[in-house]
């Protein structure tokens, strides 16, 4: 190891130790306990829902057998929709329930994270950047301002504004928009589109509308987006992968993402007409 490498190692160790010393493990442990309590509550809810669904299925089978007579062998019962595991957000607002695509659900290395503004799954088994397993799936609320205006806090938050900002970025050559269509997600109007990010642009994806806002870059990703008009707010669901992924991989991701959109429910499910 030469002098520079020794200096790099020492500097990184000093930086890490400095950061480690400034964290309050006791306080952070309390936060973690709260988060794990939320996970446990969520699990219990899923268990109860599963038990009720299973009980209902058994009752239906019994009723069906009695109706058809004991000499008749019933046809196999197809799995009920409730047997497909749904993810219900715990911290993210609004509460969203959805069926996560199988390539995420079945991955042993999927990493899920959630907070009040973002719920996401990262899948990198097989190596990030290689094939469908490299997909970085993200579901997030993007309450977006104009790109690169991080200090321009505003209450205005129309989805049209977000879409317009993407179109401006397209006009500037920073991204390309394709496969745009209109649909509904969870009963709310939505625009689904694909974007191909062609330049790294700091804050180019826009910034959240919040006092402690975060901003989002354009960073050589390929994304399938659903921009949902949730009571006038912008709620973005996205599946992302590297631009370098093959067209087949992107098509597969898009198909599964679009399928996922059909499973989205908001809870409590508000009436779109109430907005």
């Amino acid at each position: 190891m030469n002098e520079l490498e020794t200096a790099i190692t020492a500097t990184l160790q000093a930086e890490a130790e400095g950061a480690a010393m400034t964290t309050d493990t006791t306080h952070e442990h309390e936060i973690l306990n709260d988060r794990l309590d939320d996970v446990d509550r969520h699990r219990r809810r899923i268990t109860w829902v599963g038990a009720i669904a299973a009980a209902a299925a058994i009752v239906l089978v019994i009723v069906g057998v009695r109706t058809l007579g004991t000499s008749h062998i019933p046809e196999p019962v197809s799995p009920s929709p409730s047997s497909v595991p749904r993810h219900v957000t715990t911290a993210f607002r609004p509460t969203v329930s959805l069926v996560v695509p199988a390539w995420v659900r079945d991955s042993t290395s999927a990493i899920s994270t959630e907070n009040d503004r973002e719920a996401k799954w990262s899948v990198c088994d097989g190596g990030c950047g290689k094939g469908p397993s490299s997909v970085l799936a993200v579901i997030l609320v993007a309450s977006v301002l104009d790109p690169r205006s991080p200090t321009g806090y505003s209450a205005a938050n129309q989805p049209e504004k977000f879409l317009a900002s993407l179109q401006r970025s397209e006009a500037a050559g920073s991204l390309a928009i394709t496969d745009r269509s209109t649909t509904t997600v969870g009963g709310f109007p939505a625009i689904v589109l694909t974007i191909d990010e062609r330049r790294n642009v700091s804050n180019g994806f826009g910034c959240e509308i919040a006092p402690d806002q975060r901003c989002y870059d354009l960073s050589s990703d390929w994304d399938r987006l659903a921009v949902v008009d949730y009571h006038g707010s912008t709620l973005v669901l996205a599946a992302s992968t590297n631009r370098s992924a093959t067209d087949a991989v992107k098509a597969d991701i898009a198909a599964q993402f679009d399928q996922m959109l059909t499973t989205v429910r908001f809870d409590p499910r508000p009436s779109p007409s109430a907005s």
Partner: protein
Amino acid sequence: MAGNGTDAGPGSDSFPTSSRAAVTALFLAHHRRLVGLASLLVDDHGSAEEIVQDAFESLYKRWNGLRDPSTAVAYLDRSIVYGARSWVRRRVTARSFVPPEAGVLPSAESAIVDGRRKEELALAIRELPQRQREVVVLRYYLDLSEEQIATWLGVSTGSVKRHAFRATAALQKRMEAWA
């Protein structure tokens, strides 16, 4: 050198069997180290702490799916790297207007580098492109081999070498200019 994921963990005889107790024990044993690791990959301390929280929550959710509980520490390390990348890669940011966290204290062990030079080097590392920064942290902080880094980052060994070369060249140039 910081731990590389082989520390004593859930594989030890006395390790608690319930997932909650196991994750708690791991948290108490590794929280500070992981905050340190995360802080090398993102620019502010709050984000580093949140990434660590996310990693432990993710571990708790997936505890029963771990084929080998002794891999939990390595899982946490990788979660930090992936979490930091996802934070930085589009989702981070705020980078242009959130200044790097102040108050990182120098270590006595780093006497080999004088104070100002070390500050300059630390700043230069933070200003590296994200992938180069990841390679530098994994190579020189976690002491991973090029092959291990390639596996973690999902790139070829050649790509790791290129990133490492560019990073060290940039740092060398910066240090020479500073001198």
